[in-house]
Each structure stands twice: as structure tokens, then as C-alpha cells.
């Protein structure tokens, strides 16, 4: 039985100048190399797809440099807190996107739609719970990561810019907590938001304007929840994602620091050598 010809992308590519063993069929003793069987082609399809992507994007040297970069001696589990924070953010992003499929940002519907998610939607309680508790986890991880950076002195030259970006990320994450708190729209949400907006109003000069911006008016009104919702799910996540990119770029570019106790040892060693 003759199998139909495999699709074009599964066929072996023609030899390139300078590629392969560089020998033509005549140099090979008059024999063409045996064409690979369908099974061989299929087993190589994954690798060839990766190769196709890599040849056109140059991703693998970048990824190799990023994932297999050298780290200083003494690197320990505390250095994973930043990645842990990022995964907490990714978890928030994914669960948030799916919560948005059921949530209705309207003052008369918000509470009912949130209850609907918890009580009726399949796995709704789990997804909403992950989003709710995950927010606290993310804030705790940020502070642990920040504490590690501070205690290890990893904020010093030349990494000051990364500390500054990290502080902006912290503030944005706290703003996420503030804007997300209103969305279930129960009594606690409502009054916490009233108080939080009025705390903003207590800032001198710009405070009153800031409060009116957040509330979309002088009183808590019909557009306050949509406004908080848009800030919570569009404005701040985009900023956080972009700044995480910059944060990671600087980590890859500058490398990480050794723990401070190793630096002290090195100094002693140097002294002994002299």
C-alpha cells in the first residue's frame, strides 16, 4: 500500500549550500541518501517546528542566556521569592480574566454576579478563592522579596534602578488590592472604598481632585464601580506586566548578587593571599 505524500512541512528540506554533509548524490557513491521513513519524520516534527521558530526569531540564544546564566556562589532559596511573586501575579492575571467572564461591573448587579460566581458557577468558588487569597499571597511575597533584596544589599550600585522599578511595582500591586476590594460590592467593600477614597482626598492640594477622579464625581455613583473595574483589570495589569518585563531585563543584564556573608569571606581570603 502506498501512503499519501506527507505534508510539505514534514518533508525533508532540500540541502542548503554549506548545510548538511555538503556532498551531492554523485559524491556519495551514486546513491541518494535513504529518505527518512514516515515514523522518523513524525518523531522529528516537534524538533523541526522548534527549529523553524528558532531560525526565524533567534530565541534560543536569548533563552539560553536568560535561563542558564551564571549565578553567584551562595545563591539560595531566598532568590526564588521574585519568581514566586511573578507566578502569583500570573495566577491573579489568569483567574482574573476568567472571573471577568461572569462578573458584571454594575452597582445593581455586582454583588449578585459575585455571589453567582461563588454559589452557582462550576469551580467558581475555587477560582474566586484563588483570586482573593492569591492577592494576599502576592503582597506577602512582594514584601519578602523586598526584604531579601534589602537585607542582602542587592539594591546597591548598579541595581538602584531595579529597586526603583520594584517600588513602583509594589505601589501598583497595592493599588490593585485597593481597586479589587470594591468589586464584590458588599458592605465591607463599599465602606472600605468610601474610606479609602476619602483618605486620598486628605492629601493636600491634589487630594480633592484625586478623590473626584476615583469616584467619578463628588459622590459614590453609578460609574464608580466601572471605573475601579477598568483600572483594576486593564490599566494597572498592563503597567505591572510592562514593568515586570523591565525588572527581569535588568536582572538578566546585571546578574544577581552573592549573599553578603560570601563577600565577607572573599575579603578575608584576599587578605590571606596578600
Amino acid at each position: 500500500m502506498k501512503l499519501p505524500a506527507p505534508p510539505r512541512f514534514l518533508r525533508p528540506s532540500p540541502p542548503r549550500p554549506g548545510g548538511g554533509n555538503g556532498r551531492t548524490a554523485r559524491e556519495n557513491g551514486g546513491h541518494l541518501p535513504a529518505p527518512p521513513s514516515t515514523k522518523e519524520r513524525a518523531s522529528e516534527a516537534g524538533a523541526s517546528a522548534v527549529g523553524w521558530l528558532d531560525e526565524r526569531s533567534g530565541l534560543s540564544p536569548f533563552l539560553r542566556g536568560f535561563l542558564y546564566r551564571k549565578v553567584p556562589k551562595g545563591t539560595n532559596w531566598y532568590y526564588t521569592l521574585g519568581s514566586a511573586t511573578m507566578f502569583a501575579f500570573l495566577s491573579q492575571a489568569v483567574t482574573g480574566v476568567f472571573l471577568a467572564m461572569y462578573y458584571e461591573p454594575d452597582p445593581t448587579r455586582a454583588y449578585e454576579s459575585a455571589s453567582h460566581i461563588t454559589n452557582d458557577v462550576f469551580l467558581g468558588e475555587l477560582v474566586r478563592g484563588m483570586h482573593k487569597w492569591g492577592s494576599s499571597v502576592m503582597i506577602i511575597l512582594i514584601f519578602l522579596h523586598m526584604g531579601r533584596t534589602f537585607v542582602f544589599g542587592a539594591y546597591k550600585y548598579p541595581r538602584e534602578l531595579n529597586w526603583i522599578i520594584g517600588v513602583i511595582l509594589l505601589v501598583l500591586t497595592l493599588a490593585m488590592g485597593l481597586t479589587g476590594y470594591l468589586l464584590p460590592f458588599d458592605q465591607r467593600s463599599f465602606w472600605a472604598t468610601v474610606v479609602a477614597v476619602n483618605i486620598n482626598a486628605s492629601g493636600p492640594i491634589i487630594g480633592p481632585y484625586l478623590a473626584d477622579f476615583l469616584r467619578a464625581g463628588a459622590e459614590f455613583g453609578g460609574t464608580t464601580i466601572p471605573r475601579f473595574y477598568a483600572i483594576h483589570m486593564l490599566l494597572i495589569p498592563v503597567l505591572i506586566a510592562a514593568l515586570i518585563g523591565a525588572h527581569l531585563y535588568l536582572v538578566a543584564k546585571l546578574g544577581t548578587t552573592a549573599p553578603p556573608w560570601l563577600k565577607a569571606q572573599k575579603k578575608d581570603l584576599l587578605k590571606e593571599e596578600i
Partner: protein
Amino acid sequence: MADSPSQNPERKSRYTSGRGIAGAFEGETVTRRRLMEGTALAVGGIASAAFGLPALGFALGPIFEDTTPTRWQGVGPEGDFNPRTYVPRVINIAPNIGDAGKTTVYVRRFNPRQDKVIKGEDPQPYVAISTRCAHLGCPVRYIQASGKFVCPCHGGIYGFQGQVEGGPPVRPLDRFYTRTSNGTVEIGDRFSVNSELRRYSPRDPSNHLDGLWQYLYPARPTT
């Protein structure tokens, strides 16, 4: 002197030909490359501003427009209210959002013997005290036995006139304009008062209206 070509002709000349740039035209002061750079940046800037500024104004609009138009709401016949104590009434301050738009006001009749009239202000026929705490906006309640307003959040205490008697609030409780129409008491717009109960445009909780502090909290542009 600085433009004198005799000093350093490559750098000081204002003409591109004088600076030794290849392909320079006679009398040209900006290279074509530099001009194109500037043009591309300016076009990009104009294009960004063309969508960015309207969007920003759209988001900031509520600061500059009056979102709470004046409307009078009846809260009961005149006979329901007396000058000695407050009667709670619920009014709507934000339309179409259900219970979240409602607030309680404490209403009593104006009493010329205990309520002083501020010079230059027309006295309101009824005193309608807002329950929005002047600290951070929690709802205060009136305690009949002590004749005081008490806030549950941070312990603000106000006297019978709504003046601060203890806790963190920075100014007395807000009030509402009142009037009577066909024997019905009606509640109008909110106004804020300072420690002398002088009227000001409505301010947010936590905004001072006394001393030097008041200058740190500007009134709304719409008032």
C-alpha cells in the same frame, strides 16, 4: 565672538557647510537628516496627543463637571419635625444605583434661640445634618440620650449642632439646604460648614475648613 569661524570652524559655524558636513547646501543651518528626525518625532507626538489628550480628558472629566445636579426631595410633612431633636430620614444622593445611592440625614426644625444666624447667610428653615463623618466618610448615628453624633469607625464625636467634640474629624458634619413646599419639608444640596458653622461649598471628608489648613484643600472647580 562665539560664532566667529576663526576660533574653531568645524564646531562653531552655524552653517552645515561650515561644519564640514558632507552634502551640505549653501546657507543650510540644519541637516536634512536632523530635520527629518525632528519631523518624525513631532508627527509621532501629535498623533499620540491626538488620541491621548481626549482620552485623558474623558477620564478626568468628573473632576470638572457637576455630577450631582440640584434636586429637592420631600422627606415628610412639617409636623414630623421639631426643634428639640433629630428625626432620621433617607434621601437619594446618587441615582439609579439602588441602596448604595441612599444616605441618612438627621432633620430638625430651626430654633432661633439655640441656632445662631451667621451674618450674611439666610437661615435654613430646617437643620438637615449629613451622616457622612467629616473624618473619612463613615456613617455617623445620632445618640438620643447624649444628644451627640457618634462615628463607628474611628471614634469621631459631634455635638448637637454637628460640631466636633472629640476624635479625628477636622470639621463639623456637613448639612443640606432645606425648604418647605406645600407643607412638605424638602432636602436640597449638600454644603459644608467650618467650626463657626459658616457655609462653604461641599467638600470631601478630611478636608479642613479652618485656619491655614483650609488653603491646602481647594474647592471643586464646579462650585
